[in-house]
């Protein structure tokens, strides 16, 4: 179809947003070497490439290192309270389909204090892009074990080693009803991080992206083996999913063609131990979105409110004999 006249005329005033249009006046204050920088950059690249108007973009976060991200974006930001980024984002989206809403959350925020919201957000499948910055440790509160910390991690709350096996955010998410998009990225392959983020943004529904993120301060060498050995990274590709640039393809030769609708395989990939999978594990665009389902048939207008109120008052009304009951002639 050809574009309508309005669309053509609108394009006349399209602005050309640059990376710098998404950089706030506050310089990032993450530790040097922190993986959050890569995520911020990927996000800004996405905004520029999709030309998202900064005023129509909202980044919502909870508490933690990851949740500082909205401060560094020149967009609307909502740096809320620990664990509650998702319901805040849902509230924003429910009556504002025009806004692009991103949620940046950490492993403590999302998988511990806000775990209930996480499961239900997947179930609601609202049109949000969720980035789980998973560095497997509480950073902002100075090194406590998180639900995704590896067993045996020595931290301030587990000085003799974390006692439990970590929770796997990917397989948990894949197991929730109405799941529609699950991907994993790592901060040290920025191109793929960007590509995955782009796919996530373009997906209609809740896209959940877990980003394995290095914390040089508290988890210094956690991912060294994988950072150094590209063959330990399993890249998931598909004609409907991720397509690799040649320079990335050349470095990361361990590739698997994975159909993003293949749930059993997605679950198997999610559980890999030796290799870190990177790519889109699951993508089902047909799952209905709660914000669409609850969008409301008609807009709320004074006339409509009056009609509905009058209907309700009529049901419980009493009037004197002399008065005209419905305010109209019969």
């Amino acid at each position, binding site marked *: 179809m050809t574009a309508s006249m309005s669309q053509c005329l609108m394009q006349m005033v399209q602005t050309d947003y640059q990376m710098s249009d998404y950089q706030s006046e506050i310089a990032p204050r993450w530790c040097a070497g922190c993986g959050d920088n890569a995520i911020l950059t990927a996000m800004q*690249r996405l905004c520029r490439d999709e030309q998202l108007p900064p005023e129509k973009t909202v980044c919502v976060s909870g508490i933690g290192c990851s949740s500082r991200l909205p401060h560094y974006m020149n967009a609307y930001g909502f740096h809320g309270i620990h664990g509650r980024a998702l319901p805040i984002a849902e509230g924003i989206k429910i009556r504002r389909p025009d806004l692009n809403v991103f949620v940046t959350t950490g492993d403590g925020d999302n998988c511990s204090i806000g775990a209930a919201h996480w499961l239900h957000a997947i179930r609601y499948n609202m049109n949000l892009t969720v980035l789980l910055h998973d560095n497997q440790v509480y950073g902002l509160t100075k090194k406590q074990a998180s639900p995704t910390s590896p067993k045996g991690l020595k931290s301030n709350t587990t000085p003799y080693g974390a006692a439990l096996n970590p929770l796997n955010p990917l397989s948990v998410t894949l197991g929730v009803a109405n799941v529609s998009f699950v991907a994993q990225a790592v901060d040290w392959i*920025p191109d793929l991080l960007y590509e995955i983020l782009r796919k996530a943004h373009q997906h209609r529904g809740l896209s959940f992206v877990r980003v394995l993120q290095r914390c040089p301060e508290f988890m210094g060498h956690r991912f060294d083996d994988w950072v150094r050995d590209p063959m330990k990274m399993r890249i998931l590709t598909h004609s409907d999913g991720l397509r690799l*640039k040649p320079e990335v*393809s050349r470095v990361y030769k361990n590739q698997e063609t994975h159909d993003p609708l293949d749930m059993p395989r997605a679950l198997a990939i999610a559980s890999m131990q030796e290799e870190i999978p990177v790519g889109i594990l699951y993508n089902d665009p047909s799952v209905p979105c709660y914000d669409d389902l609850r969008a409301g048939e008609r*807009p709320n207008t004074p006339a*409509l409110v009056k009609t509905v109120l009058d209907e309700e008052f009529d049901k419980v009304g009493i009037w004197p004999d002399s008065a005209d009951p419905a305010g109209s002639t019969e």
Partner: protein
Amino acid sequence: MQHTPIATGNASAPPMSVAPLRPALLARYAGLEELRYDYPLVLTESMDGQHLFRPLSRIIDNVLRATATPGPAGEALRQQVLRLEMRIRHAVAEGQEGRLSDLWRELSADLIRQSGEAPFGPLDTNLDTARRALKVDGLVIGCDAGTPGKVLTHAWEAVHAERARRFRKRVDGLILRLSDILKSDFMKSDEAHGPKALESAMGAHRDGSVDFGALSAVLARARPEDRIPNDRVERIRKVLAVLKCQPFYAPGRASHFCANRRETYSYTFDSCSAALDALRERLPDVLDFTKALTIAELEVENKYRAELHDPIFEQFDESDLTSDQMGLLPSSLVFLRDGVTDPTEITRAFEALASQLPITILIQTDDILGATSPEPPRASLAAGTARLAAMAMGLNNAFVLQSASAHLYRMRDRLVGGLHFDGPALFSIYSGATATAPGIPAYILSAAATESRAFPSFTYDPTAGPDWARRFDLSDNPQNDVDWPQHDLAFEDAIGQRQSESVAFTFADFAVCDQRYARFCHSQTRVEWTTTMVPVCDWLKETGAAEYLHKPYVCGVDPDDRMVRIVVDDKITEAARRCNDAWRRLQELAGINNSHALKLLADERKARESAARTAEPPAPSMVPVADVQAPTPVVASTAIDGPEVTPDKTSDDGPWIETARCTTCNECTQISKSLFAYNENMQAYVADPDGGTYRQLVEAAESCQVSIIHPGKPRNPQEPNLDDLIERAEAFN
């Protein structure tokens, strides 16, 4: 379907040409009301714009599927409901017309009364159960002279209503959003912060707990807020007025209150001239509205820029109207009841059909054959009307549908498709209500017109594809691959034995139904039959002398249902030949027995035969090359095609960074802002290899989390401790 065989006893022949004759194939349809066929039709009041009408029998079948359970109780219900259906059928045949629910109520009450059962008895209960399963309602109509007009008008109105809903949704949405902009601006005004406005907004009408004067004083703001500039407010107000008062559709929820609203335009006309004149007259309104709509769409997105857009809207005229914009406005319906006789009207009809305007023209034909007096004319005016559809196909951009009343339900989806078509559309429909064929129900006669190829069903849909094969459709005709459809005719022979014979239904069969053609027909009873009589379809194939030796006849029945042979004059056979000719041309257009294709096929066959004889290899040009493999490059499906990119390496010895793998961790840029910089994707590269020391390069390489910095060789041999640094750099080069 049950029908009684026709008697062909040797009773004395009635006087010729006194009583109407009928083709034998139609004899079986006596007592149409007993049959469950496509009529009565229910013009459904649905909102979906798709199932605009359905046969009563289909609706009843659905009701029965939902309510009649297997078993005796369900069977009883089924019988009772079918009895009611029969009553409705009879009532409609007698000219009664009404909504299904009303007919149901009235006739079921009659049925119950006559059955002698008490109210709330089993019959009442069953009919009530069935009524509750009735999911649709609407006018029930029979098949008569009014049918094509009613069906098409109903369908057009439904499509119109659907367009109106879509229009209102869009326009009301814009009105609301524009009003919101103004209201939101008003909320910043002093007036909105005054005591009165505050009191009004607080709701507590009898509650003195807030001093609104004090509240207003508290809210007197320190900083004047940004108000919308006046010119924008003016523009929005103007646009709002146009949108709210548009005359194209009745007002919607948001546009109900428009002080100077004009009467909504009517879009139904009884001549093409009136329609075209009206559309011309309304053009300024269309332009005004379209402009307002476009401006509104820009405004709600905050995208109107006076300096860019004002000039465009100042020059906005007819030529700027796009089909997207026109598609929002109503289409016109022109209903030409008795064909087109006025030559200027025919011209205007073609003008309308050749235009790009959304005009739907319905031509109802009640008479295909036209007057015969003194001779059957080669082309009567009425017959010209009947051909209008075939002619309109030549216009290329008009949707064309031709059908008879009896086939309307079968053509329903195409009909709806035509009504949704953006441009002009022509519907030519034969009602079957020809005054000169008394005693034959309109349904039968209209079916016979299709059957006999006198009035074939077809559609031409310009949106279906670029070529005739996709645009033209003849498939709704019976046995459309032959000249005349063949049917089995069951009858009793002279000694009362049941016999069956395959008989073609030809144009002649249709013609003999018409009283005006009676004088070209000669009815012959069994005793008069001779071996020189041949059926019309066979006679038409004959050439030369046989044509003169043989007498063409049609199998007919006389008023006493006795079988006769109706020998027809050449007036009829000539017309039949013309009809057959026209039919064959339609077939060709539809790709059936296409002459070009047949010729190609014949040539090909000939070529192959001669090739086989000479044992030469087949001409290479005729056969597609299948065994030669094209050297297609095998590319990894996952890789994006593109030139091989070499790493951002400046020289073998210089420092470089694998920029694509940079994670923006700031380590290197914190070491040196001149040596390292970020590109447009915020990924690091070596901005100036001489912008820093070799030490800084090596340290950056060491601190890089992803080890993508390669220091290369030192560029300044004077730098201290080079040996150590070179050794440390080794790991990264």
